[in-house]
């Protein structure tokens, strides 16, 4: 007798209905495809954590060959672009306080004389550090410069002024992303961020809408089983999740040339677990929310820590321990490690098993909560 057991035909009817509704809701449909593209373009093109060609003012009180060499060397790092040449200290200060320039380099009078005499003259670098991330790499580059910039000019009797070789040579070798391109880090991360946002929100909304509009009652008076209703909600959004991922991956490949070293099949397998974990969260929210507005608020409540504490926005290792613990709970944190690992490092299944396990535990826990809450709603 039908009606007693899980029935695939009924599930298919529910999925079909969900897709019709999705197609009809133009705004949501546009969001599903528009949000990934928009985020990708914004994060991919607009955001750069290693900015170059920063506006710099040079306040030179000494006009020797050494000064010129030093300034030339600064420009050669690509971090500094000399835009201003103030004549007085006051003018230089005004430039930096107004934000016209990010840096002021002051070369003291008698710079060359002191240098020749071996009096170790000082160069002053004023940096606008209100955005430390913007200034950090430039300052680091200048430090290196101080030891090497003038080597070429210190010839003959001045050769002794060349700084003694450091006891060891520090070679920094940025691996996996040797060009230090922000996009390589951000674009794979965007997939996780987009999925977290859209999956949680769309399921939460889709279920709450049924309850709010009273259609849920009708569904339950028909022979549809609770599990069928739940899966009928989740499966269409898994499909949406895969479409979004494919969209971002294709764009990542062709717009940003993000390397994809690892197995895409492995990535899609992990993706399923990650998407399901987020859908379970959305489903739980839908059982708690009284209306669609509340559902959206809850989705944002989940989305914020995900985006801030997962290592997407800020380096994970830079966070205090308690924040790292919260981050460890969130599926996005682990997914970011997995997807960056697979795409950029070519990680295999062994390398990602810990993080995959963590997402799985989250998924199981969220599903248990969702099913429990769901049963209570029915009664």
């Amino acid at each position: 007798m039908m009606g007693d057991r899980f029935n695939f035909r009924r599930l298919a009817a529910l999925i079909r209905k969900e897709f019709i509704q999705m197609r009809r809701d133009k705004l949501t449909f546009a969001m599903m495809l528009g949000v990934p593209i928009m985020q990708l373009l914004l994060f991919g093109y607009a955001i750069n954590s290693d900015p170059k060609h920063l506006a710099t003012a040079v306040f030179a009180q000494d006009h020797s060959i050494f000064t010129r060499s030093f300034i030339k060397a600064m420009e050669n790092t690509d971090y500094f672009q000399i835009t201003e040449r103030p004549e007085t200290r006051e003018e230089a200060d005004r430039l930096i306080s107004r934000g016209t320039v990010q840096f002021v380099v002051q070369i003291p009078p008698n710079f060359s004389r002191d240098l020749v005499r071996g009096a170790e003259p000082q160069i002053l670098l004023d940096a606008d550090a209100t955005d430390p991330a913007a200034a950090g790499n430039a300052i680091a580059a200048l430090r290196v410069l101080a030891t090497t910039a003038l080597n070429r000019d210190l010839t003959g009797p001045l050769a002794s002024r060349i700084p003694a070789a450091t006891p060891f040579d520090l070679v920094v070798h940025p691996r996996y992303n040797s060009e230090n391109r922000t996009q390589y880090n951000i674009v794979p991360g965007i997939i996780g961020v987009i999925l977290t946002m859209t999956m949680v929100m769309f399921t939460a909304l889709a279920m709450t809408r049924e309850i709010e509009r009273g259609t849920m009652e009708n569904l339950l008076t028909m022979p549809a089983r609770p599990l069928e209703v739940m899966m009928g909600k989740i499966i269409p959004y898994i499909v949406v999740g895969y479409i979004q991922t494919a969209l971002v991956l294709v764009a990542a490949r062709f717009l940003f040339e993000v390397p994809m070293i690892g197995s895409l099949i492995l990535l899609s397998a992990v993706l399923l677990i990650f998407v399901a974990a987020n859908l379970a969260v959305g489903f739980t929210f839908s059982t708690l929310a009284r209306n669609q507005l509340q559902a959206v608020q809850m989705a944002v409540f989940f989305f914020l820590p995900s985006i801030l504490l997962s290592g997407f926005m800020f380096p994970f290792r830079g966070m205090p321990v308690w924040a790292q613990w919260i981050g460890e709970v969130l599926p996005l944190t682990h997914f970011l490690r997995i997807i960056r690992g697979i795409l950029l490092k070519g990680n295999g299944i062994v390398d990602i098993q810990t993080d995959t396990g963590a997402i799985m535990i989250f998924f199981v826990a969220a599903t248990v909560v969702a099913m429990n809450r769901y049963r209570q709603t029915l009664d």
Partner: protein
Amino acid sequence: MSDAASFEGELAINVEGLTKSFGGRKVVDNVDMQVAKGEIYGFLGPNGSGKTTTIRLLCGLLTPDAGHGTCLGYDIITESPRIKLEVGYMTQRFSLYEDLSIRENLDFVARIYGLPNRREAVEETIEKLNLKGRADQLAGMLSGGWKQRLALASCIMHKPQLLLLDEPTAGVDPKARREFWDEIHELAAGGLTVLVSTHYMDEAERCNKICYLAYGHLLARGTAQEVIAQSGLKTWTVSGSSPRRIRKLAHDLTGKSGIDMVAPFGATLHISGLDEAALERAIFPWRNDDDLSWRQDDPTLEDVFILMMNKASDNFT
């Protein structure tokens, strides 16, 4: 008990002692209900009296805290999936998808019930509804009366044996209501059992049997005449020379001992009491007033229900 067992075959609904609480409040309290097959059973009671909850208990949507019984011969607690297959339940609110077209809605319902010849069933229903030209319109665009007809059509498409209608005609104009009831009678003539909750007295009078629920308690049941007779209510109708005179009389009589209810009906006043002698004593001072003409009358179903509601609020709150 042996009596009930022999009735079993003919009863569409047979439940005893149904009780359900929400958050410590008893919404349905010890309700017994027997509905014979092919009957149109009216389910009356004020808002929040537990009608909807009772209907949900009957079709297995909710599990009762206490009580037991059968619906179409299936146990309401253990066999709810089977009950759902043979029951058509029309919810109080329009609960089809407003963002799906009429055809898509019907098709969805047909798929969920797993109807054989799905396409034909859907087209036949559309034709019967006279919605052929509009089948691809969104259900949300329909007027109240059409929504109600569509909802009814969608819940009889799978040819249920029992139809549960929860205030089906709320917010529908009189003509559509009349047509709706004609259809209900037609369906019942074809052997379908109908349980319908309503607020309208004219609808209650079109039912074969009615019952009255207030604060979760079943207060009366039987045919409309039986319910009126059981109430023991006596009524006098009085009409006056001017509306003002009637208003003043209503004011003077309200709350007098022996008078349980004063209700204005247009230019007349219904004055009712449970104790005939006390009622007559109470109205005696006005009986010979030249401006008023008095007539002893049968109480209406509405008089009876309002009285029961007042009594129930004294007893149960």
